[in-house]
């Protein structure tokens, strides 16, 4: 029996997914459970496993196609089996559907009717009303993606683009038509998936949450000692190396419950202070950022955090995190130390009300008992939503975090 390969629903609210790439070639043997293709949801790129073993055939999805959930995008066939005729939703009443040619030589596979020729170079498929709207709004049709047949840009696509652009623009500000430079274009990338969500949320956050930023240096001498002392032991028990990130996560998770407004969300007319500390760890992948979430971090000890962190980061890098594991954080830690960044400010990840930006640990001159000495120092910068958090409250959180990291034995 031919098994349909469908675009899966990997998220409760998902309606479409953007196809990224096939990890197997058409006509190739695949094994059930093997990674078969990658899709981009609103949140992340995800690898999808093959639903069956057999030969991949009838591949219709192409990179950047936006495909409705449950649509068949290929088949897995048994050896010698023919691909079933694809159900066509687009043929008008009474119109005859084109016949699928019989077995073609050399194991070639029949291409489904959705394989339409691309629009000629320099031309865009767009309905007349979409063209008129785009012209009136000053939108470049080349920057839009169409959901109509053959990728035709229709009214709904232009309307969606307008909405998106309005969403990533601070509210109340007029749409600025800033002329684009007269330069040759290397590539035009539609704003979709994770990039679009990031764009919308960052602009929303920057425009609606008045940010205050507070910064201090933490002496990481004791934390370094602690790490050295525990490194081998934790590696024996967990197989993972203890990182400064894990120590920092443990400290934040221990301190946050004492500062309810830092672990809170502004929701229309109310402030919700969260009992749980769901810690988002901003993680940079090759071309975009994801935020895997450690649930109820306040209940986990250092060893448990080491294990959870290693697992999340490893699966994030191989695109195997589920959308649920990348959403719902109540506070975010962003660390750019590995790039040599010593300090920076971050934009709050809504609906959270604060975010901690962590810099590289660097040897700095500091006052010791016998004059100036070099100490491993780390910069922490807290961005806080001033609607929820007063300066003193933010300072109090940072101060306690500093005290904890400088005397990490408090975490015992």
């Amino acid at each position, binding site marked *: 029996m031919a098994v349909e390969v469908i675009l899966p629903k990997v998220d409760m609210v998902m309606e479409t997914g953007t196809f990224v790439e096939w990890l197997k070639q058409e006509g190739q043997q695949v094994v059930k459970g093997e990674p078969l293709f990658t899709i981009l949801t609103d949140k992340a790129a995800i690898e999808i496993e093959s639903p069956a073993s057999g030969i991949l055939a009838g591949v219709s999805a192409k990179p950047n196609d936006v495909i409705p959930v449950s649509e068949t995008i290929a088949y897995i066939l048994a050896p010698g089996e023919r691909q079933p005729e694809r159900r066509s939703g687009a043929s008008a*009443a*009474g119109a005859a559907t084109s016949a699928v040619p019989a077995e073609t030589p050399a194991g070639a596979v029949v291409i489904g009717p959705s394989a339409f020729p691309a629009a000629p170079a320099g031309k865009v498929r767009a309905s*007349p*009303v979409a063209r008129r709207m785009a012209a009136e709004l000053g939108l470049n049709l080349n920057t839009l993606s169409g*959901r109509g047949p053959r990728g035709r840009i*229709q009214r*709904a*696509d232009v309307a969606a683009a307008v909405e998106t652009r309005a969403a990533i623009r601070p509210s109340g500000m007029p749409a600025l038509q800033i002329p684009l430079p007269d330069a040759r274009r290397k590539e035009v990338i539609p704003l979709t998936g994770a990039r679009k969500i990031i764009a919308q949320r960052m602009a929303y956050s920057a425009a609606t949450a008045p940010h205050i930023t507070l910064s201090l240096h933490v002496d990481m001498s004791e934390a370094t000692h602690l790490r050295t002392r525990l490194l081998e032991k934790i590696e024996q028990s967990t197989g993972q190396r203890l990182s400064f990130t894990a120590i920092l996560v443990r400290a934040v998770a221990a301190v946050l419950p004492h500062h309810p407004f830092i672990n809170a969300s502004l929701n229309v007319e109310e402030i919700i202070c969260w009992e749980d500390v769901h810690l988002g760890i901003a993680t940079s992948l090759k071309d975009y950022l994801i935020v895997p979430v450690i649930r109820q971090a306040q209940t986990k000890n250092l060893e448990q955090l080491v294990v959870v962190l290693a697992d999340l980061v490893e699966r994030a890098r191989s695109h195997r995190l589920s959308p649920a594991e990348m959403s719902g954080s109540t506070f975010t830690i962003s660390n750019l130390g590995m790039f040599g960044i010593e300090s920076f400010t971050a934009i709050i990840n809504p609906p959270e009300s604060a975010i901690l930006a962590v810099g590289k640990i660097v040897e700095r001159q500091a006052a010791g008992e016998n004059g100036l000495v070099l100490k491993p120092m780390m910069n922490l910068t807290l961005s806080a939503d001033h609607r929820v958090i007063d300066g003193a409250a933010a300072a109090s959180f940072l101060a306690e975090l500093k005290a904890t990291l400088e005397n990490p034995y408090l975490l015992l």
Partner: protein
Amino acid sequence: MSDQKKREITYLEAVREAMVQEMRSDPDVFLMGEDIGVYGGAFGASQGMLEEFGPERIRETPISEEAIAGAATGAAMMGMRPIIEIMFMDFVTLAMDQLANQAAKIRFMFGGHTSVPLVCRAPAGSGTGAAAQHCQSLEAWFVHAPGIKVVAPSTPYDAKGLLVTSIRDNNPVLFMEHKLLYRTKGHVPEDLYSIPFGQAEVKRPGRDLTVIAYSNMVVRALEAAEILAAEKIEIEVVDPRTLKPLDEATLMASVCKTGRVLIVHEAPITGGFGGELAALIAGGEAFDYLDAPIRRLAGRDIPIPYNRTLERATVPQVEDIVAAARTLAKEGK
């Protein structure tokens, strides 16, 4: 007054009432055709009229459509206002020289010194199992002959009001009556009234898609609209009522509103009136409002089969309109 409001009669009775009332008020109006006297017409349109108006004004003719049309053209030039009944629209092919070459051109060729106020009533359409020579819808032939007006009412109300206007018009009018409409009922005032030519009517408003249909296809489009409404697809059914002159403004406004249009007629798709409508829309104000290609749903390019199943499959049915409208309404949404 309230009785008057509620009065419902059939399409066939509405056609008869228009003829009778016009004949009572204008002695120049008379009816000519095959079997229209004692027999009352092949479909019963002229039942009782011989008794009221006598054989001078209800004139039985030999079986010769050319003679009927020719005699009517001559009578019209001499000041009479003849109505001719062509038993089946298919037989009008025999009268085409008189209608298309003579009646249509005389007023033009004589510099307006004479006119040809004749009405050619023609029962059209399939669905009765009457096979290929008794089922055609030949409106496109007449639309293509300058000088002839073409009327295709879909309701009893429109049938009466437009037939009155046809009789009073000073030009030849092809009045198309779909045989399946004859038994449909609707509100028709007893008083004499007329509906001007060139006024389309929105038979059902909707936001998602415009369906342009005339004659019996209006009835099917309205049925389809009910089914689609249950799926939250609101189609707007627009009936041009007169194909020539055509109310372009109403059609255009509807397409501008919905951005999508399905044109439905029973006649074969190739060379059908739908192509003309499509070209007008694509070339007009509505172009900039189109969000999907203009689509046509029409009869297949074959003679109407006698076999019931094949006859049904040849012309658009309610389910075909539903499917085509659904596909078009969802395209790209």
